[in-house]
């Protein structure tokens, strides 16, 4: 068992980054994730020699990530919604160049400069592309401080395994709240001699070259095929989700991250009133756990999807159930957080009173 501590989500994320043997962090402060850079500046360099650098902007930070990842280094950046928007061009380039890196978005209310309160309005941006071209990020959705830690380790592993950018999509509340957390032991910073890394021309061998520019369409299509093949493997092997009470469920609640945590409470309140509610919480938003929804849909009366946005993941839920059950939505926006009571009221409105 590792160390058990009482930590803030953002600090736990930073501590996990250090312990995962991260080589470099490039970032630019923004509420509600400024603790990350503060924590790393205080702790990281003196403990592991990790490079921690405040870039002059998010555009600069993501391109530093691109460069350092290209050198075969384990790298990460974090930001919040408006800052993540600025990073989209870079993420598209990194996905195309097939480089591993980890990015965390501590989602706040939008659109625009919005508010510093927690929200989940960046689901589409994270899961459906964000930048240009046909690419995906692996998207991990933590719902607790513990998962902030676990997904840093998992995120680096997936990034390395698939040579792909990985996104941790959390929100301001998970970043700011404190919970009991078990930390994994300090890992060595490994120097890996990747065959693709630009670490200097090896004697007698070809020059290594990283780019996302391929003027010949034949070559660019080939690259697209490589990427799509990779995403297919992810969809077959990397799906992760949490399921509760599926055995006796007549209804489902579903959501990700903080909204899912609140749904679990609403589900408990509902079960105490005799409603047979189950729960599916996707932990990977890409690849999305389509199969489990499809499997459950024919035998339930309906799904209430709850998100802190206007309804984004619900599109994937609907695609998954293929019309075999009713899917209704309840959400709050702009930094407002739904309460368990509100969720249960909406569940009753759709499925108990109105049915």
């Amino acid at each position, binding site marked *: 068992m590792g160390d*058990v*501590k*009482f930590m803030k989500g953002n600090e736990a994320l930073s501590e996990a980054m250090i312990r995962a043997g991260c080589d470099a962090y490039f970032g630019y402060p923004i*509420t*509600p994730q400024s603790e990350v850079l503060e924590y790393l500046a205080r702790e990281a360099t003196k403990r592991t020699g990790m490079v921690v650098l405040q870039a002059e902007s998010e555009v600069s930070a993501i391109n530093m990530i691109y460069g350092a990842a290209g050198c075969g280094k384990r790298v990460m950046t974090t930001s919040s919604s408006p800052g993540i928007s600025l990073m989209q061009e870079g993420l598209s380039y990194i996905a195309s160049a097939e480089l591993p890196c980890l990015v965390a978005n501590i989602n706040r209310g939008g659109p625009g400069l919005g*508010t*510093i*309160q927690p929200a989940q309005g960046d689901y589409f941006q994270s899961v459906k592309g964000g930048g240009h071209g046909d690419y995906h990020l692996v998207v991990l959705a933590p719902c607790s401080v513990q998962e902030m830690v676990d997904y840093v380790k998992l995120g680096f592993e997936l990034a390395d395994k698939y040579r792909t950018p990985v996104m941790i999509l959390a929100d*301001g*509340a998970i970043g*700011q*709240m*404190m*919970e*009991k957390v078990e930390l994994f032991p300090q890992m060595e910073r490994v120097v890996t001699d990747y065959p693709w890394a630009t670490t200097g021309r090896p004697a007698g061998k070809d020059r290594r070259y990283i780019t996302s520019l391929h003027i010949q369409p034949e070559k660019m299509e080939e690259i697209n095929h490589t990427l799509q093949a990779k995403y297919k493997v992810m969809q077959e092997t990397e799906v992760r989700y949490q399921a509760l009470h599926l055995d006796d469920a007549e209804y489902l609640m579903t959501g990700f991250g*903080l909204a899912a*945590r*609140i749904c*679990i*409470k*609403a589900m*408990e309140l509902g079960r105490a009133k005799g409603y047979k509610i189950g729960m599916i919480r996707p932990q990977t938003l890409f690849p999305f756990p389509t199969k489990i929804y499809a499997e459950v849909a024919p035998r339930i009366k309906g799904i209430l999807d709850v998100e802190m946005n206007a309804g984004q993941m619900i599109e994937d839920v609907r695609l998954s159930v293929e019309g075999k059950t009713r899917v209704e939505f309840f959400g709050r926006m702009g*930094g407002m*957080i739904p*309460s*368990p*009571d*509100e969720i249960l009221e909406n569940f009753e409105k759709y499925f108990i009173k109105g049915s």
Partner: protein
Amino acid sequence: MLQEAIFSGFGGQGVLTMGMLLGYAGVIEDKEVTWMPSYGPEMRGGTANCIAIVSDSLISSPIISTFDSAVTLNQPSIEKFEYKVKVGGNIFYDSSNTINPPTREDINIYACPVSEEAIKLRNSKVLNMIMLGAFIEVTKVVKMETLLKALEQVLPERYHKLIPLNKQAIEIGMGLVRK
């Protein structure tokens, strides 16, 4: 055991610290804990609050709308949270600093003159610790010794000389609600 509490008061009264200390103490006693601060506009002036949940089993939602206990250090907090206490729950308030005290008859109301007691201790800053003493005496969420251990963890060593004063404050608070 499950205790869902809200701590609320003016910024600077130490409401976030009360909840946080409870969290640290909960972890020491190997309980599950969640602490959710207000970090938004409130933190930038005005009334601040935090939700602290301590439980023997896994905690579902860190965000809740009704509470087992409300610890209110100012008038706006009483007005905001009195009616969010569950039936049979507790409200603690600073009776030396309140014009309109809570009035509900279906909850336990603890009038704690914490400002006065803090002044008697010649340190107005420990009013939150007095209130925390009253809170743990009633709810029995964590032991006093654990709170003191938590203080040792949280305070930098140069402030450890203040631990006896905090201990005294907690004990006074416990005495205020002991019948």
